[in-house]
């Protein structure tokens, strides 16, 4: 009798605690969570990446996004994928000043490299910040007439008739129709996995390698308000993103023709402002600037040293504009360049997970 009472009580306790509703749900395709692996340096120094609550990272979503990213099915004539202008070997940009679209037309902006995108806290994408969120950004190139020149209706129809995609979409997002929202969610998931955090400088911060004297001097020039003063827009050893992801007029032109952020906000004070790009992976991402006008890193350094041009919205951080720039010596330029190249991450551009 005692035993019976004991077991009855234990059963009662078990029932009390077993109140989750797992057993009542119908089985549906449930993708497997695959949270971003946050590099130790990022976890230590900066706040968490932005993952939309309605688009968590999953194994199936990332795999689908990767397939879509490399698939020319997105373009009208099946010739161009995202990866055409965002090539892994170039840190997901290309080496052209302007990329050529499917009809042979040139865009007006340099293809942006893609990495560490989940740490763009304000979520303003493109050089002019016109897309909020990575998911919305991914909608645009498919229909841009100088890029993939397609319609999402066509893309969805192709995906629905494809031998593999319907199953991949079901695995990633459950049953239901394929739509552009799911497609861009998947692409965004893949893009968020493109994390670059293994440059020489990262390893220096982790205590694994030493900088050369030239690189050390280059860092000092970068951080010196009297010389490079690069850090106000491009991060610092405590901000491993190497960008502020904000918008500045960096003195490229006296007369501004492409108004950049101003076209999006409608505020003339924003004319000529473009997003500060990250300084990671410069070894692989030439040419530089929003219009790809500078073929080399030397050209970029020379611009800030003696090539600045004044205009009404120039950023006051271009403080030596009256003298044309910060007037670095040749030795300073060489050292600054050596430091900047220490931010490049060969393991990122060679990562087999990021290849087709």
């Amino acid at each position: 009798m005692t035993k019976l009472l004991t077991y009855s009580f234990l059963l009662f306790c078990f029932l009390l605690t077993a109140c989750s509703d797992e057993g009542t749900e119908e089985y549906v395709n449930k993708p497997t969570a695959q949270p971003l692996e946050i590099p130790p340096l990022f976890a230590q120094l900066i706040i968490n990446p932005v993952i939309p609550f309605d688009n968590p990272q999953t194994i199936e979503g990332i795999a689908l996004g990767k397939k879509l990213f490399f698939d020319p099915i997105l373009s009208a004539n099946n010739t161009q994928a995202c990866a055409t202008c965002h090539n892994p070997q170039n840190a997901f940009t290309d080496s052209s000043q302007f990329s050529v679209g499917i009809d042979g037309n040139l865009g007006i902006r340099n293809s942006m490299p893609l990495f560490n995108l989940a740490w763009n806290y304000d979520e303003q994408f493109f050089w002019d910040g016109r897309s909020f969120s990575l998911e919305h950004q991914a909608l645009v190139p498919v229909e841009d007439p100088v890029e993939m020149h397609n319609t999402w209706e066509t893309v969805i129809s192709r995906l629905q008739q494809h031998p593999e995609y319907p199953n991949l979409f079901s695995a990633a997002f459950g049953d239901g129709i394929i739509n552009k929202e799911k497609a861009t969610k998947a692409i965004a998931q893949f893009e968020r996995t493109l994390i670059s955090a293994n440059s020489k400088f990262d390893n220096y911060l982790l205590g694994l390698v030493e900088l050369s004297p030239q690189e050390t001097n280059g860092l000092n020039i970068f951080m010196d308000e009297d010389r490079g003063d690069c850090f106000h827009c491009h991060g610092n050893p405590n901000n491993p993103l190497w960008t502020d992801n904000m918008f500045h007029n960096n003195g490229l032109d006296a007369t501004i023709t492409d108004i950049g952020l101003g076209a999006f906000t409608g505020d003339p004070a924003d004319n000529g402002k473009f997003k500060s790009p990250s300084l990671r992976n410069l070894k692989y991402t030439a040419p530089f600037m929003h219009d790809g006008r500078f073929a080399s890193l030397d050209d970029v350094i020379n611009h800030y040293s003696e090539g600045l041009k004044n205009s009404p919205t120039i950023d006051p951080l271009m403080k030596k504009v009256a003298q044309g720039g910060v007037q670095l010596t040749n030795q300073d330029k060489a050292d600054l360049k050596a430091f900047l190249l220490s931010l490049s991450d060969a393991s990122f551009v060679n990562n087999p997970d990021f290849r087709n």
Partner: protein
Amino acid sequence: MKKIISIFVLALVIFSCGKDNDDNLTPAQPQVAVTFKFTHNWDGTTVNSSNLQTEVVTNANGEIMNMTRLRYLVSRFILTNENGDSFNFDGYKFTNLADESTYNFVPENNGIPAGTYSLKFIWGFNELDNIDGAHPDLNSASWNWPAMLGGGYHFLQFDGMYNVNTTPLPYNFHNGTALVSADVFEQNFAQITLPSSLEITNNATIEVKMNIAEFFKNPNTWDLNVLDTSLMPNYDAQKMIQANVQSVFSLGTITQ
């Protein structure tokens, strides 16, 4: 039977770990919560995200100037009542004038008895808080102060152009740790004490007003023609900003 009783007691212990409403002792007085709301003006003209980049102002030295960017850091808010009891609020406030969501500061540990208080806070970070790289949210905003200048964080970044009516030139009015000489640094925060007394009777929003013009006014009349850029490594400029910040803040209205 003993076993049953043991199990029952064990079960009681296991199931009694919820949060009880009576865990906190009833306070002697009802607690009220405070919110600090920072507003910004140039000698009385409101400056906010709408007109930051368009307002043209004249400083005490007569230069006509505009403002591109204004961000600042304050910390260690303390309310002290008439008995001398101090209530310290955790956290710090990083304000970006371009982003009105940063204007308000609601401390996490928030509850004081009604009473009459005075307010003080730190301009920037004191030496306990101004630890290089220690604050991920500020690192993420690239708010760091270079290690070669003592490290830690900016207290102020105020950029724009002056002499906009003649030949516009940039100013970068930045404040942080002062460089005395190579590898010798001096703390440069300021203790701001607002003399007015605050009658707090209920949950309250306390307005703190920043008069931006005061940075250029008192006790040092600032001549941007002499001190405009590269002020960060300039010891004298850093100490002058530290002195001038004392008259920048004042109490506004209390809403409760």
